[in-house]
């Protein structure tokens, strides 16, 4: 059975009225990196919930 997925992530808290925008820290690393992080976060989230 297909496992649950992380669809989107935003790190940190936003203290501003309008800064829910671009975290350039990760954007330039592209789609492959984003997919890998999604899988990793999903696995860690699942493991954290079980343990």
């Amino acid at each position, binding site marked *: 059975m297909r496992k*649950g997925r992380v669809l989107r*992530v*935003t790190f*940190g808290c936003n203290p501003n009225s*309008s800064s829910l*925008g*671009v975290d350039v820290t990760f*954007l330039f690393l*592209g789609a492959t990196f984003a997919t890998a992080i999604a899988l990793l976060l999903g696995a860690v989230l699942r493991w*954290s919930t079980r343990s």
Partner: protein
Amino acid sequence: MKLRVVRARPERFGGIAETEHPRALLHVDRRMMRELGHPDSPSWNEDERSEAPLSAPTEVHVVLSRRCAAGCTGCYVDATPKGASLSLVDARRILDELAAMGVFHVALGGGEALELPQLFEIAAYARSVGITPNLTTSGLGLTAADAERCRVFGQINVSVDGVGEVYTRARGFDGFAHAERALRLLRAVKEEVGVNCVVSRTTFDGLGEVARLVRTLRLNELELLRFKPVGRGAGLDEELTPEQARRIYPLARRLMLRHRIRVKLDCSFAPMVFWHRPSARAAAFWGVQGCVAGDVLAAVAPEGNLMACSFAGATGVDARIPGNVRSAWPSSFATFRDFVGSAPQPCASCQYLRLCRGGCRAVASAHGRLSDPDPGCPRVQEWRAGHSPGRSRPASLALPVIPA
């Protein structure tokens, strides 16, 4: 590494989970929500790919006051030393409702929030109802005792629009030394301290110095906020030049790599980012998007008015009256939410429309109508140059035009 989910709320696509260490908001699908132990939600009867807005904002900007002694030349809330402020009782009432709706964060600002005697009580109350309070401040007048009390906040950013003389030119007074002192005091008591820098025509060339300051003081982020011609800023000629608009995203990347700091751009910079054609999938995953007003974000003015964001006009809904925010949320921000479905050219044919959402609605509104494309978008500028009277052929566009 273990991720502890501190709160989660269901959405039509699944849900949003908040974690700490690292602090993050994760959008997860329905299966993952079940794996996290959440029961099926009635909202899961809706189409999970629907473009409907979130059930509630994830963050609300609470403009605590229009009171500030600094008198910055471009203040977007037009703050004065005797401006209006939100009382502790009203703030508590609003926070109660936001907590019940599942809002995760509030951004407290002003005016100068530190001038308000009720600030720390409001922040503590937000914590008590499960909302993380974050703060933006000029840092003017911050004492060591104040800094100690600031532990109650999540992220605190101090406004530094430039180093030394650039600060003075941007804000109209010499306050850099005070801001730097505040940063040092805050950093001594907590890690989540950063810098807000309004990027204007004047401050653009000084961004490198600000990034160096962030690295030197070991701050956790540099947030670059686009200058918007609203409030007292409406009378200033400080919007980025077309060349600066094209350079801001590569510059932010360069500052990040050179100084090894986290750099964020606000949502109004989205058109300037998408003009460089980043991966749309990566952008969607990292939550990179244009105008989030009335969807991810909402704001409350010190007079109690609910707004789509703090740069937008009032809705006429008084957020201080219990139940008003919840009942207004589903239908009050149609002008913002409907932009993608009714976008004019050149937005309508842009491959990033669903992510960019036409850029900043506040800037568009300041120059014409709320439903216009953002005039600061490089693609919009190229398109308009190609369609101006006297031109027989459209100029080539950086992004391909997709046939309808």
